[in-house]
């Protein structure tokens, strides 16, 4: 072969291998972790939800930030009493394979999320301890009964993804078929997921015609991919990588950072000690330094947009003098204030967690607490954070971040504060009753009861050290018209993206 031919061949080979140019209506989204499974019954997991929820599989109702609960596959719903709610389903909805969506599919989806042969997160997280039965009135009307009765059943239905009644009860699906605006085309494991516009979609067409999801675990690489035009949206950008004001959006990410204090072991079983712990922390010092600007000091376990969030509460002031006085008072009454307190942190829980924990340790030590910091990987941390607790555990404070993007404190309060709650540090019959009553209430009464409960937790019982409502960062390509919201932490609706 002549040299000129040889070079021509090489040139052609290189040109063939060049990346194809991005089409105007396509988007590439780079996520921080690969999806291990893609079954819609796991769509409450944030990494799965960002691909599947409302893109491929739609929920029965939908919680929209700023608007509250909205219709999605159900057009309306009414309380029938005795724990039963009637849902009137949207007519003319088709799955992406062309089959019709009806009440049978809703009944099957509810049964499937509770299947013993699967471990669907939606069933375990939102319907644990609740028996669900259904009664199909007609193809587009279904009665759903919860036992015990759930006043927020329509809200719970905002996490239930509709699947075909033919989907197996004992196996996760690898290629989900939904009613959403996009079809799940392909999953090249480890590499990418492809979605394209669903021509059968009941809600009309969207600007984005196809989407590619890729996975990069390094934040700086994700950010760089948007800068170079290789991707359009990069989620979970670290604070130090969010350097471009034109493309990097911060938004409340529905996570609340707090220190769970053991209320049952001395010295932290004394309310004066818990107050002192709170007064020892200079919350403002973290913001704009090791935590992002926009981070909000917390007075409740749920984000401020949740119903029943008590906006009248004020964070504990940073007052080392007062903290020392409270410790001295407790000491005078025989409380063993010198006892070593283990401060437990979780490695890689959020950007700068190590620095945050070291700062907290220093602040607590400054007012006289004997605090020892221990950082653990997630499995060991879980053993310390969740029940059953070790009987000889000693005083322990555990750092944790809690996510509630579902609009109601019920998804948080029992687990974090009730006597039987898996991560509760307190046995308190009064609080148990407050949580139970608020859970059963509806409307304005429910909102008021949650406010009272939050006031009791924060001001009266001082159960834990509430720290911050956190913010997340996403980098968005300038060609897109898209602003991330609090929901971006759990879903990323392609139909809400348009092009400039």
């Amino acid at each position, binding site marked *: 072969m002549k040299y000129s031919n040889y070079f021509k061949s090489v040139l052609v080979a*290189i040109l063939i*291998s*060049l*990346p194809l140019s991005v089409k105007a209506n396509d988007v590439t989204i780079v996520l921080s972790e*690969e999806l*291990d*499974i893609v079954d819609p019954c796991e769509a*409450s997991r944030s990494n799965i939800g960002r691909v599947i929820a409302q893109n491929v599989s739609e929920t029965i109702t939908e919680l929209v930030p700023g608007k509250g609960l909205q219709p999605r596959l159900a057009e309306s719903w009414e309380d029938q009493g005795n724990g039963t709610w009637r849902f009137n389903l949207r007519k003319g909805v088709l799955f992406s394979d062309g089959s019709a969506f009806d009440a049978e599919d809703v009944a099957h989806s509810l049964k499937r999320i509770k299947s*013993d*042969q699967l*471990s669907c*997160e939606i069933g*375990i*997280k939102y319907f*644990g*301890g609740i028996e669900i039965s259904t009664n199909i009135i007609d193809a587009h009307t279904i009665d759903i009964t919860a036992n015990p009765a759930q006043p927020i059943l329509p809200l719970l239905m905002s996490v239930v993804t509709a699947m075909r009644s033919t989907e197996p009860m004992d*196996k*996760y699906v*690898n290629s989900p078929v939904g009613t959403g605006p996009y079809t799940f085309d392909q999953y090249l*494991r*480890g*590499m990418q997921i492809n979605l394209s516009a669903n021509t059968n979609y009941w809600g009309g067409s969207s600007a984005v015609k196809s989407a590619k999801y*890729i*996975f*990069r*675990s*390094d934040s*700086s*690489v994700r950010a*760089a*991919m948007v*800068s*170079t035009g*290789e991707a359009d949206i990069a989620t979970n950008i670290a604070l130090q990588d969010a350097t471009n004001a034109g493309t990097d959006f911060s938004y409340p990410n529905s996570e609340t950072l707090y220190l769970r204090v053991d209320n049952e072991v001395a010295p932290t079983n004394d309310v004066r000690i818990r107050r002192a712990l709170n007064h020892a922390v200079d919350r403002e010092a973290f913001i704009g330094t090791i935590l992002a600007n926009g981070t909000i000091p917390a007075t409740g376990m749920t984000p401020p947009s949740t119903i029943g969030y008590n906006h009248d509460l004020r964070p504990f002031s940073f007052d080392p003098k007062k903290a020392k006085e409270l410790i001295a008072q407790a000491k005078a009454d025989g409380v063993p204030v010198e006892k070593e307190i283990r401060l437990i942190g979780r490695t890689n829980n959020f950007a700068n967690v190590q620095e945050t924990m070291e700062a907290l340790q220093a602040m607590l030590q400054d007012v006289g607490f004997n605090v020892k910091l221990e950082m653990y*990987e*997630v*499995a*060991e941390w*879980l*053993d310390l*954070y*969740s029940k059953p607790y070790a009987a000889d555990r000693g005083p322990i404070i555990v750092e944790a971040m809690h996510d509630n993007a579902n609009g109601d404190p019920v998804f948080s309060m029992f*687990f974090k504060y009730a006597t039987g709650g*898996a*991560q509760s540090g307190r046995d308190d019959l009064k609080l148990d009753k407050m949580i139970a009553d608020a859970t059963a209430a509806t409307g304005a009464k429910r909102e008021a009861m949650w406010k009272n409960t939050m006031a009791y937790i924060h001001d009266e019982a001082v159960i834990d050290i509430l720290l911050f409502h956190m913010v997340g960062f996403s980098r968005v390509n300038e060609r897109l018209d898209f602003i991330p919201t609090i929901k971006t932490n759990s879903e990323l609706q392609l139909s809400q993206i348009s092009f400039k």
Partner: protein
Amino acid sequence: MTNFLIKRAVTSALSLFILVVLVFFLIRLTGDPASLFLPLDASEEAKEKFRDLNGLNDPILHQFFQYFSDLIRLDFGISLRRAEPAIDSVLRGFKWTLQLAAITMSLVASLAIIIGSIAAFRVGGFFDRIVTFFSLIGASAPDFWIAIVAIVVFSVGLGWLPTSGTGTVFHWVLPISVLFIRPFGLILQVVRGSMLNVLSAGYIKTARAKGVKDTAIVFVHGLRNAMLPVITVIGDQAAGILNGAVIVETIFGFPGVGKLMIDSILQRDFAVVLASIIITAVAIFVMNILIDIIYAILDPRIRY
């Protein structure tokens, strides 16, 4: 040679068995997969169901014998996280890692041998000093730093190469370059040192006295005898990459077996951890056998 290979296979299989037994029991001491897989709010009842469903409530010895009886039939179990056969996940990742290792080590070996030999032949000269300086930097520079700097310079700054991924030949340039630097520096130093010893041997002086050309002295007479320690280090470095180039896989988004193994350990996905270990161990065993064969070819005095 056949006897040697059989003996080597038996000892390697025994080592592998002990390794798998240790990992099987030790990883089960590190945490409950049910707590990691299920949401934090999962009830104890839900966790029990999960453990029952996945055989985690069976007595540990029963789990062990069940695992080995399945393994004999080449059934490596099901991944808890991915709901697919563990071996499918591992082989899919191993394919990428093997390609990375093969391309990188081919480039490293050929360039390090040529440049290291020339540097040794002109020891103390300008070329030798430059090569020694840069190879020492390469051997000691941290992978993650080089990788990030490479992306910032060549992808974001100059726009010459994609940041990450596997789609085209251009996607492979940065990961292979980053993987290349450290073993290249190390092997080049070994080649240089080994060649210096060989080039001072009597038979080389004789060859020079007889007027044999420099290239023949270096690459025919010298190199063959200098290669034994070099082959050992090449094997060692290749084994390191086969075990997973975790940093490069993580930063450049290569879906290799190294990242898969780390993720599986963190998620307590026992079946994938064990399958990864078995597959990489077998690959390293095969590579070591090949190295032994190359020893025998290079030095006829070696008899097995």
